[in-house]
């Protein structure tokens, strides 16, 4: 059943992406100031948003694990972090490329960029630590705690453009500015592509969770064997 949901989500994501790509390159005109390169926005910002949403989902699962001690929540948290990390890296890389074109540099240490990088480092550390702990309960317990601490930084990433004057542009998306900063046609494609990327992320999480729970089933079967003996 879960497999079918995963396949379904992946298929929907692929269809939506194809449509979006067509719209982006064939329908929308070049932007006035930036030319063709602005289209990277359609991947850059959604990747960042999906990543950040993911960390909060992982936060939720971590808290759930701590209250329920249900390992399913732990493996969900871990797979969500893994997938979010991928999208955060996509955000960094696309941002870097964009920066190279628009600003002429790959990187600068402004608040948004710095905090985004730190966020990647924190959750990379999360994965490294998980791998270093063998005992399942200990791993779940400690990584849940780390996830909660890490999410504080996600807030900083999100708010950094409000708090500091940065090289990185300030808020433009409607839900933060109250609307009006983005062309409606662009905003439409933007949100469609956000949805597509979100679906990709969900599909990836489903696959990862399935792997994790299979591993857990094998584990508990082995326990059962011992119990019988």
């Amino acid at each position, binding site marked *: 059943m879960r497999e079918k949901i995963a396949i379904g989500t992946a298929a929907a994501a692929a269809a939506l992406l194809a449509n979006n790509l067509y719209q982006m390159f064939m329908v929308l005109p070049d932007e006035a100031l930036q030319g063709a390169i602005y289209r990277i926005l359609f991947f850059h910002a959604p990747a960042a948003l999906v990543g950040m949403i993911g960390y909060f989902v992982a936060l939720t699962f971590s808290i759930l694990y701590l209250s329920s001690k249900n390992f399913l929540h732990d493996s969900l948290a871990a797979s969500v972090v893994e997938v979010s990390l991928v999208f955060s890296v996509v955000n960094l890389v696309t941002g870097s490329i964009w920066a190279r074109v628009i600003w002429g540099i790959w990187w600068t240490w402004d608040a948004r960029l710095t905090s985004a990088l730190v966020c990647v480092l924190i959750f990379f550390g999360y994965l490294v630590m998980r791998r270093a702990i063998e*005992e399942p309960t200990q791993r779940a317990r400690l990584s849940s705690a780390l996830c909660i601490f890490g999410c504080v930084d996600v807030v900083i990433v999100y708010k950094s453009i409000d708090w500091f004057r940065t090289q990185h542009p300030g808020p433009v998306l409607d839900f933060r500015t109250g609307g009006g900063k983005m062309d409606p046609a662009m905003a439409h494609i933007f949100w469609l592509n956000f949805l597509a990327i979100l679906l990709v992320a969900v599909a990836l999480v489903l696959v990862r969770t399935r792997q994790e729970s299979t591993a857990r089933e094998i584990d508990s079967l082995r326990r059962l064997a011992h*119990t019988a003996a």
Partner: protein
Amino acid sequence: MTSAIELAGVWKFYGDYAAVRDVTLNVEEGSCCALLGRNGAGKTTLLRILAGLSSFERGSAQLFGVSPRQAHAGFLGHGIGVYEDLSARENLHFFARVAEVAQPESIAAEWLERVGLANASDMLVRQFSRGMRQRLALARTFLHTPKILLLDEPFTSLDDRAIAMLSELLVESRRRGATIILSTHQLREAMVIASHVALIENGRLRHAGERTEAMLDDPGLLYRLHA
């Protein structure tokens, strides 16, 4: 009789190895239960569960109706739980304060006297012999007159006098109503002190009941019965 300690269907897994298997055990208030079992049977694991130091997967554990973490039993483990770089007196002061004892200084001095370390009270623990450490650890455990005592091989490294001293401490603790579980391989000493015995084998409880006269005469009896 009320049960001071109640274990019901407790399982504890390390990875996929079950170190404690479906253990159900009630220890009456005021009794002294000797927990016996061969190396690796699961005695330490069980005592750590009762001290709230180890989680377990299934079943329930209660001490006087509350969870082990809230019961604050007096616990003496394989590691003796005193600081190497503090003196004996400093150690006892510290643990007396942690346990919120009324007059930490005088209580500490009294216990140093009782366990025979009065002369060595200002030496650092790292300068102690093995037996002196164990005595200090005993003082640390009994200091705040806990209602439940969990002692893992408390006789280790004690000389004849210290064994007598510990036996006396245990008798006195029972007299004031404390409940005791102690694990040990020194069957002879255990049988003399215990009112009850429990035998654990490969994580399973094989026997639990009163200590009989026959066991007193032949400490190895229980092992042979369940061979």
